[in-house]
């Protein structure tokens, strides 16, 4: 097993590009791994041993989460944004505008207040929860953006609400406001491992019940023996990133399969 993992680490080290490590990985990975000589590749592997392994993609510098662009000067804030700023004072940390979408960034501890206001207030009236999802920005201390896409079927406007949370921070579930969030939050938990509290039924949804690790995180190993990925991808990460195998920084080849 160990040999196998090492030889595979070779190719993997060459481009620590993320790759879907879904249920199919077991079959898909092995033939791919056989290709490259282990040693050469292992030599190029950086050694970030702590768990939040630096971002996967552009090794030279971690991709900073792009700034949430502020609305251009002179642009008037729409009523829904001003209403939430007034309705939940201090909760909105930042307002952002990009290609026509408005986003409010909210403190995680005030999330439920803001959401309740957004749903119940007449000027916002966001009765429809389109989507709940997240994005992972590993080097950041609060690495996850949890994004709620809201829509109002009465006023026909959209707003995104975003909270930034760290790995251990709990996020209050919004299922009590929108039952629609049930499966969406389960998926966020399933794919990112974000701790959603007060969720009625927090289980894995897309991945098998006994799956270890959270596939949509950027540090999730993209290749490797399926059994190990299934049992404990973090072990696989450690094996792959053993210090003695560390070499120069990996190049940033973005290989497309």
């Amino acid at each position, binding site marked *: 097993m160990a040999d196998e993992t090492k030889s595979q680490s070779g190719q993997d080290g060459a481009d620590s*590009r*993320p*790759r*879907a*490590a*879904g*249920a*199919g990985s077991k079959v898909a990975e092995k033939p791919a791994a056989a290709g490259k000589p282990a040693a050469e590749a292992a030599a190029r592997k950086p050694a970030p041993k702590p768990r939040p392994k630096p971002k996967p*993609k*552009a090794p030279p510098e971690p*991709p900073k*989460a*792009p*700034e949430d*662009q502020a609305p251009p000067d002179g642009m008037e804030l729409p009523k829904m944004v001003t209403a939430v700023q007034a309705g939940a004072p201090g909760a909105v940390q930042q307002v952002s505008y*990009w*290609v*026509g*979408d408005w*986003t409010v960034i909210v403190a995680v501890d005030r999330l439920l207040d803001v959401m309740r206001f957004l749903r119940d207030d007449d000027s916002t009236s966001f*009765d*429809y*929860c*389109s*989507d709940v*999802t997240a*994005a*992972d920005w590993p080097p950041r201390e609060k690495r996850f953006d949890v*994004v709620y*896409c809201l829509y109002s*079927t009465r006023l*026909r406007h*959209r707003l*995104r609400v975003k909270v930034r949370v760290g790995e251990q921070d709990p996020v209050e579930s919004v299922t009590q406001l*929108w*039952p*629609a*969030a*049930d*499966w*969406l939050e389960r998926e966020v938990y399933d*794919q990112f491992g974000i701790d959603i509290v007060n969720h009625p039924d927090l289980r*894995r*949804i*897309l*991945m*098998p019940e006994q799956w270890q690790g959270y*596939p*949509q995180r950027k540090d*999730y190993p*993209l290749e490797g023996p399926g059994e190990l990925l299934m049992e404990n991808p973090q072990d696989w990460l450690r094996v792959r990133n053993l210090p003695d195998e560390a070499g120069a920084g990996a190049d940033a080849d*973005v290989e*497309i*399969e």
Partner: protein
Amino acid sequence: MTLEAPRASTTQFDTDELVINMGPQHPSTHGVLRVVLKLDGERVIDADCVIGYIHRGIEKLSENRDWTQIILLTDRMDYVAAATNNLGYCQTVEKLMQIEVPRRARYLRTVLAELQRIASHCLWLGTHAMDIGAMTVLLYAFREREFVLDLFEEFCGARLTYNSMRIGGLPLDIPPGWDKKVLSFCDLMEGKLNDYETLLTNNRIWLKRTRDVGVISGDEAIGLGLCGPPLRGSGVPRDVRKDEPYAAYDELEFNVPLGTRGDTYDRYLIRMDEFRESIRLVRQAVEGIPEGPIMGKVPRLIKPPAGETYHAIESPKGELGYFIVSDGKSTNPYRFRVRPPSFCNLQGLKRLVTGHLVADVVALIGTIDIVLGEVDR
């Protein structure tokens, strides 16, 4: 059939609760959906959907493909409506890059999307009717779907996974004479729709099986996040094509059919009306196709600036949303998220089936029109 609310708790002495697994290998779960049903006699008291059997990690996969390659992956989500998936994705990227799509391309996209809606609804109609036991409608509907597939084949060479759009426009212009064929298909389809309706709409058994089955109120449907025909069946006037127009929809005339009772029969009628609206849209769009280029000004290297956006379109199943984050540096998206309408509609299944009979479960799975490729991604 009276719709009684699920009993709060069965009496403690009740012993004949039966747990049965419907699927993942079951002829009417439309793929590999597994529904764990808890039954009291034949009445469902609880249902739990187990999904993920064909989870392929398309979201994760897309984060490692360049922007154009992802179009191909979107085909594989709702594989019975691949063109609308392409459309939603391309429009999201165009929104991120602020690319102007030429008018001709927008019209053609509308034609493709509406043809796709007809094909998808054909498949829905056939399988839904088959689930309820009307086997002939299945073959009729598939026969007409075949014509749509022929049109697509002529347009892009593929019959199921089309890869039919590009960021900024379309890869190909329509072949000569294609528009005539589309129009004659529209005429044909209208006649065939009457055939379907003759077989089903006023059929007493069909009415008995669908009327007052799976009733859901508008507010509840909104709360559950239902979208598309299930939401409109409850009388909520929500159609992305109308509310947030894209492609050429703001220049075309169409109605959004709405239900009144929110039951399976209403959802059936709505989809039948949507067939007609789609035909109307296709006619208008085909007749109004302007001359001009089919590709906008797209940089050779597609690399949207850093930023994120959420964009939704009305796929045959409902609101198909794409949430895409670009870090502005690489040639692939940093985060690619699909808001699949089937996923959100399937979430409502538990609410719909509770209190109904086992036989209704198949009718209700049919009525929400799921494609597991999209649910699991």
